[in-house]
């Protein structure tokens, strides 16, 4: 019920108490809940390096050439958060076709931030997941979320 | 967890990337 900016400042202090990175059945490592989280609660910021959109292609090619998995999240038409080499634990959040979290871009003190929110109450020990909403493409990436309503492919 | 990814740096908040003068260049003289 507090204003978004105030909630965000509190999040920066307390995010590490709520979430942690552990082995995931979905894919390698994932983001997990360390205490019960309420529906609508701010969970963690998807923090990283803020880069201009035009630089994403070049970075993607570089990461691919090094065999590094790419972790980017679009803020808006102009900017992207690149958490590949510098980021918060949110970069480990896995996709699910039945997610328990969603993302939102919020503005605090004139700066934009991508924040992960809980869609519903989440119990301690649950993996936090989010719907990546990849654009549809011809070359399909299989989905390993294992949910009942799995769409089979990420894209 | 950051120990699992070499050269990875954990951040508490966003960092604005400082572009180099040659950031966009494919090739320089």
């Amino acid at each position, binding site marked *: 019920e507090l204003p978004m900016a105030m909630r965000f400042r509190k999040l920066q202090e307390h995010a590490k108490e709520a979430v942690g990175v552990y082995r995931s059945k979905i894919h390698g490592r994932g983001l997990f809940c360390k205490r019960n989280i309420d529906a609508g609660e701010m969970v963690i910021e998807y923090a990283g390096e803020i880069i201009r959109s035009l630089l994403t292609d070049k970075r993607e090619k570089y990461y691919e050439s090094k065999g590094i998995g790419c972790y980017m999240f679009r803020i808006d038409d102009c900017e992207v958060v690149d958490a590949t080499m510098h980021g918060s634990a949110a970069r480990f959040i896995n996709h699910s076709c039945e997610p328990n979290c969603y993302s939102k871009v919020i503005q605090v003190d004139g700066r934009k931030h991508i924040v992960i929110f809980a869609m519903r109450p989440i119990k301690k020990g649950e993996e936090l997941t989010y719907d990546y909403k990849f654009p549809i493409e011809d070359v399909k990436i299989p989905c390993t979320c294992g949910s009942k309503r799995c769409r089979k492919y990420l894209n | 967890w950051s120990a699992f990814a070499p050269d990875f740096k954990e951040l508490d908040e966003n960092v604005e990337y400082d572009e180099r003068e040659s950031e*966009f260049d494919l090739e320089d*003289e």
Partner: protein
Amino acid sequence: QVLLSMHDRAPQLKLSDDRLTVTGEKGYSMIRASHGVVSGQWFYEVTIDEMQEPTATRIGWSQSLGNLQAPCGYDKFSYSWRSRKGTRFHQSHGYHYCDGGYGEGDVLGFFVSLPVPA
């Protein structure tokens, strides 16, 4: 009157009230003039008011499709001359153009000769 364009530019650039001076900071981005040319021979001059190390400029000619969130000379739509080393750029390839570059206080001239379209 040809001036720096209010709208045909990257929004983060600071334009003076008289639209004759532009100031940039951080990464490269572009501003174009209020008017373009189609054919014939055209020339314009620029004075570098302020450009301390390690900042740099790339100035030249651009078509309307040239990307504004990149330096002039980034894609196939623009051509530029860089202050550092005096390199010329097109499609993000830098070629040697002259020895040394230009700096604060210099007056630069840019000429283009375009054929009459068929």
